[in-house]
């Protein structure tokens, strides 16, 4: 069985079918892009896969365990990290504290109420290491809310990475970034996933990025998977061209 297995997911809102029999499987260590026009169901699929929404039918299995229908905090504990389209950080906490609280959770130390947070020396070292990894080490004591947009996105990646996920799910990791910032972020993600052997599933609008880094691509349209395969196959797929990519990947 594949590392991440999505089987026949159906999800409706009212009368609207957001996802129809969506299936896909991702192997360990793979970099997978999920693409599709706006409203194709990418975010809904992400929300189902990480427990924010329960599917009407079908299931999601991660490393052999069923994870659909259980609340996000338990999905995360199984080794999945998620970042969001809209920057999702802890604004009125310092950069350091943002990552620190993630690590406390990862080490199940957030229930210790009688030891001072600063006495967890190993956590402190780890926080600085993670911040170093994303290039925010020198900004550790500024408030997260005053960072630039790109830095906030990187902080969010740092928070997500701090929990040592085996599977990283990124919903438009470069949304709102300048071209330069996107390139940097993508290079960073590639480097990290290679170094740590992470499996990466992401959605993205920028086709240069999608075709530049992903090993496999799943195309959604109107809640259905219309194509699934390697970048070259996807580029050649007439249905994909017709439905969505047409002008964007025309050479």
């Amino acid at each position, binding site marked *: 069985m594949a590392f991440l297995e999505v089987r026949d997911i159906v999800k409706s809102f009212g009368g609207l079918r957001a996802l129809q029999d969506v299936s896909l499987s991702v192997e360990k260590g793979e970099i997978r892009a999920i693409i599709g026009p706006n409203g194709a169901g990418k975010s809904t699929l992400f929300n189902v896969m990480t427990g924010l929404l329960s599917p009407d039918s079908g299931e999601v299995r991660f490393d052999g365990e069923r994870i659909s229908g259980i609340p996000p905090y338990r999905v995360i504990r199984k080794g999945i990290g998620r970042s969001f389209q809209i920057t999702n950080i802890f604004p*009125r906490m310092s950069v350091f504290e943002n990552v620190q609280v993630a690590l406390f959770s990862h080490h199940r130390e957030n229930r210790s109420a009688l030891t001072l947070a600063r006495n967890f020396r190993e956590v402190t070292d780890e926080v600085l290491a993670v911040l170093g990894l994303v290039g925010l080490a020198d900004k550790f004591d500024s408030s997260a809310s005053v960072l630039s947009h790109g830095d906030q996105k990187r902080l969010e990646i740092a928070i997500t990475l701090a929990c040592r996920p085996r599977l990283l799910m990124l919903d438009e990791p470069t949304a709102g970034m300048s071209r330069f910032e996107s390139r940097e972020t993508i290079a960073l993600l590639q480097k990290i996933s290679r170094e740590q052997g992470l499996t990466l599933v992401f959605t993205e609008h920028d086709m240069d990025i999608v075709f530049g880094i992903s090993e496999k691509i799943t195309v959604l349209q109107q809640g259905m998977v219309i194509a699934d395969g390697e970048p070259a196959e996807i580029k050649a797929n007439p249905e994909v061209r017709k439905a969505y990519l047409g002008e964007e990947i025309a050479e």
Partner: protein
Amino acid sequence: MTGFLDISFLTVQVLSALRLAAFLFLISSGLTLIFGVLNILNFAHGALYMLGAYFMFWVTSQVTGPGGFFLAMAMAPLGVALIGMILEMGLLRRIYIQEEIYQLLLTYALVLIIDDLAKIVFGAEYKSIPKPAFLEGAITLFGGTVPTYTILVVVIAPTVAALLWYLLYRTKTGKVIRATSSDREMADALGINMKALFTLVFAFGAVLAGFGGALAGPARTVFPGVGTEVIIECFVVVVIGGLGNLWGALVGSLLIGALETVGIIVFPEFEMGLIYLLMVAVLVVRPWGLFGKPLKIKALSEKNLSFESQEISPVHFSSRPWLWVIPVVLLLIFPAFAGRFYQYLLTQIFVAALMAVAFNLLLGTTGLLSFGQAAFFGVGAYTVGLLLTKTGTGTMPALGLSLFTSAVAASVIGFFCVRLTGVHFAMLTLAFGQLIFAIAFKWYGFTGGDNGIQGIPVREIPLAGLGLLDIGSTKSMYYFVLVVAGLAVAFLRRVRSSPFGATLKAIRENGQRASYLGINVTLYQWTAFVIAGTFTGLAGGLFALMERSISPEIIHWTKSADPVLMTIIGGIYTFVGPAVGAVVLIVLNSYIVAWTEYWALVLGMVLLLLVLLLPGGVIGFVNEKARDYLTRSGWIRRWLFSKSATS
């Protein structure tokens, strides 16, 4: 009693229930309309009701006769509308982008101010409003005697409801109002003039409150502070019906009207508790009320983050823990220099500070506004009071048990409350608080009812091998409370600086993100609720010891406002803020009360200025100034504060 099936009896009861429902609907429809469009839960709505009744009183005293009566009925709501417009344009408009707590506090400050102004203008005594002769009598209906005025009320209220329905569903402005209340951004995008619309809606809500006051005035009486009773009933109505929903207000009014009428007949000892019981029951089953929908959670970016960096300011004393020795030593030697009055004053402050600091673990740290904290204070106080008066329990075991009982109460109440957020959370804690208040107030056999408990004996405390410690004198009580409250505060400080505390802060900042770190948000909120409730209970226990008498008044919802005020005065995002707020509030109180009877007016003004000018509170302000100063003078900074990465 001739039985329920007696037609004349039924007629009288049904009409009296309808009359009550009519008053409730008039007032709460305005409240819910304002909430729906402006997203503000207006505490001052009860005060607007009161103004309506006073205006009615004033106009009828100037122009007598039936003409004067109906003139007053028309003038009073318009007068209230004018005041509503002034309040909206002058004050409320400034705080729409602020967090809920500041909006609630601003309207609460208005309650205090308007109540005292009414006292100054109209006097403190109860006023009754004369009815014209033809409305004075009673008619016989199905064999029952019904006051003519009741008939008038029962006819007028549905007429107003129908008019309201017409305005909202059949006119263009009404459609715009409904669109705005269901989707504010959409309305904004459609180019609706939001400023004017908000003023209009607030004024319209004020008209309804004022009309409710004008109509209820001649049937009831009017006095300063009548609004605080009315507003709580209306909160119950709109929360049961679903905040922002007009039909909810209608159904809620009918339910409460019926329940209170039946309650008086069937269950007279507990009539007051019934409506809170109903509210709790409804919210437990349907957290958003009968007709309500879950509120869209405001994104943090929409809110004003003007004091965003306070908590991570370099102003930490963490690296110089010995600096804490200075205030501790000062407090220890204080009784040597000060008389009994000041010792007593400070003891009061210790108790209040403990309550406020415990409360702020919920508000400032976890981001949950509880409006029922007095319940736990009461549970602690009554535990100590009852154990010491009715049993031979020692002082320390009683105090220990007060921790236990308040922890149990907080676990049960918290279990239901933490499923809600924002205003709904505040309202459910308020309902539970009032339920406990009703129990203490009415259960004469156990709690002494409204007499409370007097003459609580404070027994000597055995110290292992060192004899007995007598804490009967003012001075020894000062030291006892200082030590117990001091230890508790130190404990709470530790909790706040622990990984657990960091987790609570993360939940406050962004609950969704926190759950995506593997944190069980509800469980942590619940735990914080229990810790806050437990230590508030300890404060109550200490209060019972130092005062030696307690009354249900300490559980009333207006007492739940105290820790909120202290926290906001001192500084919400600081640890010592609430304690500083306790000092300010209690010192101000004891001096201003000696100087003027209009304490509430002064407090209201202080709150108003604070919300508008210093949202970070006293300590927030000091921190900011200190930071400005310290960044300029490097050596002080180096001396006082280390640049430790983890502080």
